[in-house]
């Protein structure tokens, strides 16, 4: 289990006064303190960790966010920003002496501008909500994390979320033009704008993916794109993971960048097939789902080339969708992967390392060995084009020993990712989950330099503290612990 710093005694002692101050800033039902109503905010997508906060504040405007942050800053109160609470790394986990600053009531789409291909939205608009709003006009917002139905754009900015289609369209950082944000002191700042590449330091880029450490994002200007004429998928199944990995290399080497290139290993294929009956080949060791875009003729041309490439690797099965419906059937199993694993195991941890794609066979072999050593099953789904690996480690949360082993297994996988030249997290963020693994990837000096940059924005470490950076060596939090 991860340690959290001790609550600040002065804040706990002044609880009533602080809550009264917050209520004065958010009249009506904007401040939640009753235990039953605070309960949904005590955890996020990393549900093994739970901690009720001091209070939950639900502002409706940037000005209200500024007022709350200013108040908390003057009173030395820690603040944990929260979108939909879908973080898989515990990024929105509260501290006992913190105010959770929930942005879900800031859910207005302020403007859509097709001529300039942008939309201005508040932080609490859901990822899919943006696309749904503009889909009738043929447009979409590209990053598509699997939680896109629920997750909010403010959280996407905080974590620099990716998705299955980022090989072609990039991650959140590549699809932003501007941010409105509030500093820990409660000052409203605008970063970037409606144009590309604002001159000066790239504050927009620095804030994106900073996990709520530097400021609170309240409004986002995103780039929107016109959808392609159509898309279609194919499925290719192979006798070994090395063979499938070689097929991925050959595809990228051919000059085709598929819009999605997903890899599933044998346990994952079996789990998904049992759940979704998508017609996946159960005798395969590895399977690829490859999607292309364009007109029907262009899809035919690209799928023809891809089929020819895959056929060089002695495939067990090659299935090219002929219709949109067949394409959806191929995706059905993959999209249900998390649910499918949830059905065969009471609980699972979804890991998120990235590796150089050439290391895939080696890494999958090692994960298989570790699975035997820890006595825990694992299924692997993988964004094969960009090397982002999602092992799903199955365990039983009612068994403390099982959870401890699952966490240790996950940590070993992430250390392996770094060892082969990759990183601890590709798209989920460090949060609390991977915080104490940071020294695997960074030297003490590199961590100190990052902490000093955090301090440049937030000298007292009031913004989402105890995340991202190990507590040991922390100039402010260690004293509090």
């Amino acid at each position, binding site marked *: 289990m991860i340690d959290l710093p001790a609550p600040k005694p002065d804040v706990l002692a002044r609880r009533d006064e602080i809550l009264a101050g917050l209520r004065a800033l958010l009249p009506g039902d904007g401040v939640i303190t009753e235990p039953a109503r605070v309960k949904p905010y005590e955890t996020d997508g990393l549900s093994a960790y739970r901690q009720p906060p001091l209070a939950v504040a639900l502002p409706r405007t940037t000005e209200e966010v500024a007022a709350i942050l200013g108040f908390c800053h003057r009173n030395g109160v820690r603040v944990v920003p929260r979108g939909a609470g879908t973080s898989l790394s515990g990024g929105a986990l509260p501290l006992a002496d913190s105010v959770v600053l929930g942005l879900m009531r800031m859910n207005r789409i302020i403007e859509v501008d*097709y*001529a*300039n*291909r*942008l939309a201005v939205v508040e932080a609490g608009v859901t990822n899919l909500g943006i696309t749904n709003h503009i889909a009738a006009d043929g447009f979409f917002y590209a990053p598509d994390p699997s939680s896109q139905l629920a997750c909010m754009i403010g959280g996407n900015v905080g*974590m*620099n979320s*990716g998705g299955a289609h*980022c090989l072609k369209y990039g991650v959140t*950082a590549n699809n932003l033009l501007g941010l409105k944000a509030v500093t820990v002191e409660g000052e409203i700042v605008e970063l970037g*704008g*409606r*144009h*590309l*590449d*604002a*001159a*000066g*330091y*790239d*504050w927009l*880029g*620095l804030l994106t*993916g900073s996990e709520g*450490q530097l400021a609170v994002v309240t409004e986002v200007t995103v780039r929107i794109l*016109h*959808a392609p004429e159509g898309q279609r998928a194919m499925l290719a199944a192979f006798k070994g993971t090395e063979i499938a990995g070689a097929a*991925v290399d050959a595809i*990228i*080497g051919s000059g*085709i*960048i598929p819009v999605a290139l997903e890899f599933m290993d044998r346990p994952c294929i079996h789990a998904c097939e049992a759940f979704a009956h998508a017609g996946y080949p159960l005798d395969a060791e590895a399977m690829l789902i490859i999607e292309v875009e364009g*007109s029907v003729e*262009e899809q035919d*041309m690209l799928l023809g080339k891809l089929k020819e490439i895959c056929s060089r690797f002695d495939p067990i099965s090659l299935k090219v969708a002929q219709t949109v419906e067949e394409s959806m059937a191929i995706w059905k199993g993959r999209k249900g992967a998390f649910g499918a694993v949830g059905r065969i195991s009471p609980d699972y941890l979804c890991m998120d390392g*990235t*590796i*150089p*794609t*050439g290391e895939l066979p080696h890494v999958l072999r090692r994960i298989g060995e570790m699975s035997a050593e820890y006595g825990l099953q694992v299924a692997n789904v993988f*964004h094969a084009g960009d*090397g*982002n690996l999602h092992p799903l480690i199955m365990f039983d949360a009612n068994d403390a020993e099982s959870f401890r082993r699952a966490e240790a297994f996950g940590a070993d996988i992430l250390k392996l990712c770094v060892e082969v*030249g*990759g990183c*601890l*997290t*590709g798209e989920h963020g*460090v949060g609390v989950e991977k915080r104490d693994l940071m020294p695997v*990837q960074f*030297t003490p000096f*590199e961590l100190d*330099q*990052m902490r*000093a*940059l*955090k*301090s*440049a*924005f937030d000298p007292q470490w009031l913004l989402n503290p105890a995340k991202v950076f190990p507590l040991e060596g922390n100039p402010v939090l260690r004293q509090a612990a």
Partner: protein
Amino acid sequence: MSDVLAPADEAGVAAAVAEAARAGEPLAVEGRGTKRAMLRPVQAARTLSLRNLSGITLYRPQELILSARAGTPLAEIEAALAEHGQQVVAEPPVLAAIFGGGQGPSIGGLVATNLSGPRRITAGAMRDHVMGIRAVNGLGEAFHNGGRVLKNVTGLDLCKLLTGAHGTLGVLTEVTLKVLPAAERSGTLAIAVPDLETGVRALSAGLGSPYGVNGAALLAGEAPRALLRIEEFSESVAYRLGRLREALERFGDAAVIEDVESRELWRGIREAEPLAAQPEDAVWRVSVQPTAGPGVVAAAGLPRALLDWGGGLVWLAGPATADSHRRVMGAARTAGGSFTLFRAPEPLRAAVPVLPEEGKVLAAIRERIRAVMDPKGILSPGRMYAG
């Protein structure tokens, strides 16, 4: 010519910076020195050149990853990529037409200036493809950030902080880029438009279509032309240009420019050659939302202009006077955008803000960050902001 330090490796860079920090003597940081005349003149007696840190250190075509030491010539990297049919995604410019010939820019210099070409409009900027860096801070301490994989959100993104920081905050010693396959074929639809406003409407219609337009420029002058590029497999280029033509003919007479000629046309746009900047001209780059581009051209009132990025990147050239600069700043501000005084005689660029001034809050954060990364203020002081 000031003294030039040109260490051969990262340890040498670290030692040179540490020594300069101890002595409190500023350094003008440069790659291969092709853009010395950009932004404000640096107040430093000595130059730290990265030209001897050269060479590709890792290239995995199948992983779409290339690492090179900061002083590696862009041309060397492009040649290595071309052998595998790949390219630098952001199409960065050489800018010989703006800054003169020389040996061509280094990859580190292009990252430090975050300069991107026409493909930026859909494929992203240099900053979007910097996956990892090695660098030395203003105390001579070496560090890395990011890595050599395509997706990485571990820790704060110092790759983005240093990209476009013009050699302040840190000295890049090595960069790792995401690279992509080069398209089989290029093709352009050229539309004769009556005015710039109509031209931007045509570009917006093309960029808002499903056909994957990845270059959208507008040649100003007596007979403005809107140019839309497709880069794809051969079959797709022909098909998509045909569909675009049907969709955009309402804006003016349209003609197709084929592969070789299309590539040369966009090379020229990348280099701002159609701007035809005169030797005595100052040159500005203004970034605004695309529909505001023509208004910026009109408000600046300068003799020469070129629009790229769908109308959102406005190159301007004209008399190198404080009055011209005031008009450009005003036009950018009115349009809610950003400007760069890209090239000017030293007295002008020393006397005026070459980038938009930041507000009080951001300026204060900037100073605190500088105190972390370069507490002695020795890395290219004055390059971006006075004082």
